[in-house]
């Protein structure tokens, strides 16, 4: 009775519990830090997924929201705004700027859109480098959101919490009317618009949601590492990393960004300690291999295969439908 739903909830809670396990069990701050980054980038990948995956709008400018979250927190807290309120306000600031950026970039499509998002991120980076309020390239010290001997446990738990929120937002999107509109836009924007979907509106809404979550992520990340400069939190590398995480795992899937974050960040850390300066080379080879052989991302490709197999088993008479794009998870 109501079996699938209950099972899903139980499964979700169990997975969450497993994710939280390291917090009480691991005492090594380094491992906690690596796990924090994995969880945080899983959250960022999921936030990106709303725009890049479901709505199919391939943004490479998300670092703008990430950086605004971090800089917003630093500047507000320096003006004695209580830290948690500052985190929230910083994320709202990111959302506000996202509304402006969205107005500019959503008029464009395809690679134009992608390039325009890059430009927005770069303009913010250059502005932060040249302004006094951001202390230019010299950088700002971040307020600590957590203190005490267990900081990294707290940071890790809060990153997992953020990832969970992002996951739930993704889940809701995948199963709501809002999400279906987004996916319609992804499949064919003109048709979606022709059948009465307010495409501009829905794209913007997905961006605002995504920017808010990314801003929270940026604030948390900056605070965890205590010091920010434009070249770290407004670096285009962050945008690319968010996108690669989602695409490697499988854009537009629920689990993809999580798998992508775990794979990419753990391997990059391992490669770095093992191979010193050649780690970027190996990282590059990994990306190339995945693009060549797992085009829908890891989760996307596995899902396709599973679906294919199920179709073959269940309906041997009919051929498996050609799957043109990855669909929502499970």
């Amino acid at each position, binding site marked *: 009775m109501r079996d699938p739903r209950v099972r899903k909830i139980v499964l979700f809670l169990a997975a969450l519990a497993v994710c939280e396990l390291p917090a009480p069990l691991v005492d090594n701050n380094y491992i906690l830090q690596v796990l924090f980054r994995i969880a945080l980038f899983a959250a960022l990948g999921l936030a990106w997924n709303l725009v*890049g995956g479901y709505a199919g709008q*391939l943004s*490479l400018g998300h670092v703008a929201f990430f950086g605004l979250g971090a800089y917003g927190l630093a500047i507000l807290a320096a003006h004695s705004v209580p830290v948690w309120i500052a985190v929230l306000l910083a994320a709202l600031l990111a959302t506000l700027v996202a509304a402006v950026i969205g107005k*500019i970039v959503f*008029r*464009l499509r*395809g*690679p*134009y859109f*992608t*390039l*325009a998002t*890059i*430009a*927005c991120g*770069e*303009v913010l980076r*250059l*502005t932060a*480098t*040249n302004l006094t309020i951001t202390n230019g390239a010299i950088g700002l010290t971040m307020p600590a959101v957590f203190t005490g001997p267990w900081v990294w446990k707290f940071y890790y738990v809060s990153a997992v919490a953020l990832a969970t929120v992002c996951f739930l937002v993704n889940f809701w999107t995948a199963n709501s009317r809002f999400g279906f509109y987004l996916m319609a836009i992804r499949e064919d924007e003109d048709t979606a618009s022709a059948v009465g979907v307010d495409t501009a509106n829905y794209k913007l809404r997905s961006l605002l949601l995504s920017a808010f979550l990314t801003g929270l992520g940026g604030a948390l990340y900056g605070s965890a590492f205590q010091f920010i400069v434009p070249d770290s939190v407004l670096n285009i590398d962050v945008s*690319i990393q968010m*996108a*690669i995480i989602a*695409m*490697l795992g499988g*854009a537009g899937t629920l689990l993809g960004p999580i798998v992508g974050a775990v794979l990419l960040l753990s391997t990059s850390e391992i490669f770095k300690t093992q191979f010193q*300066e*050649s*780690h*970027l*080379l190996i*990282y*590059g*080879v*990994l*990306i*190339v291999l995945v*693009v*060549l052989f797992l*085009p829908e991302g890891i989760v996307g490709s596995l899902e396709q295969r599973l679906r294919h197999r199920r179709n073959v088993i269940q309906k041997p008479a009919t051929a498996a439908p050609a799957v043109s794009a990855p669909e929502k998870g499970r």
Partner: protein
Amino acid sequence: MTQFLQACMNGLLTGALYALIGMGLALIFGVMRIVNFAHGAFLMVGMYVTFLLFDRLKINPYLGFIGAGIFLFAFGYLVYKLLIQPIRDRSDFMQILMTTGIALILVDSAQLTFGADYRQTNIALINSAAHFGPFTLNSASLLSFAIAAVFIIGLREFVVRSRTGQALRAIAQNRDVAPLMGINVIRIQGISFALGIAFAGIAGGLLLPALYLFPSVGEDYTLKAFVIVVLGGMGSIEGAAIGGLALGVAESLTSTYIGNQWALAIDFVLFLLMLSLKPSGIFGSQRA
């Protein structure tokens, strides 16, 4: 007024190199619709090739750039065959991902091979200047401008007159019909990619004496190349040339009258303005 004209001229000299970079990307991205995020990395490879020719064989960079062009043509074709062709029909984003991976591999390979050290060629010509009335122009920049002009015109003639060029334009106009007309799309696309990369290499070779060399030197030029292509209008080779020159002048004027720290920002502001106001670019007529 003198200052203004001098700034414009300096801008044009730099702009000619931007034009080469932009035309290379216009072939790859504008015409062939391959989103190449490794363009700057290929430019870096061109610089290293030119540098090696200078360092080992004492070949002047203003000759050595030809070697870089030839090498990168072959290298570009190889990369196309191995890595780009298998994904040519995939989404833009798969291409972005792939070319980002290629860029990482190229940059890190350069660092492993040559070290992260900064290198430069110091040739005599770069220190001499030509005077025209109140204006002063660097001789090396003038030479690279002249060379760039030859290649810009050459590429344009190639695209307009040669059979390959015609096939290339046919594909640009309609990718679906071109194969029906007996055009080998894959072959042409491979050649365009290789040619575009070769132009990045040539630009790298010409840039070398004025700049210096390190593994990640190309990074800034990838974005610049896209800005140029969009300024000039997608799919237009001439447009990219004009876009490159315009960008050079815009940067020069910005640093003369506002401050050099905003010169990079002006690239992106222009870019966003252009996309918002006239997405077809200065010259573009067709647009996807």
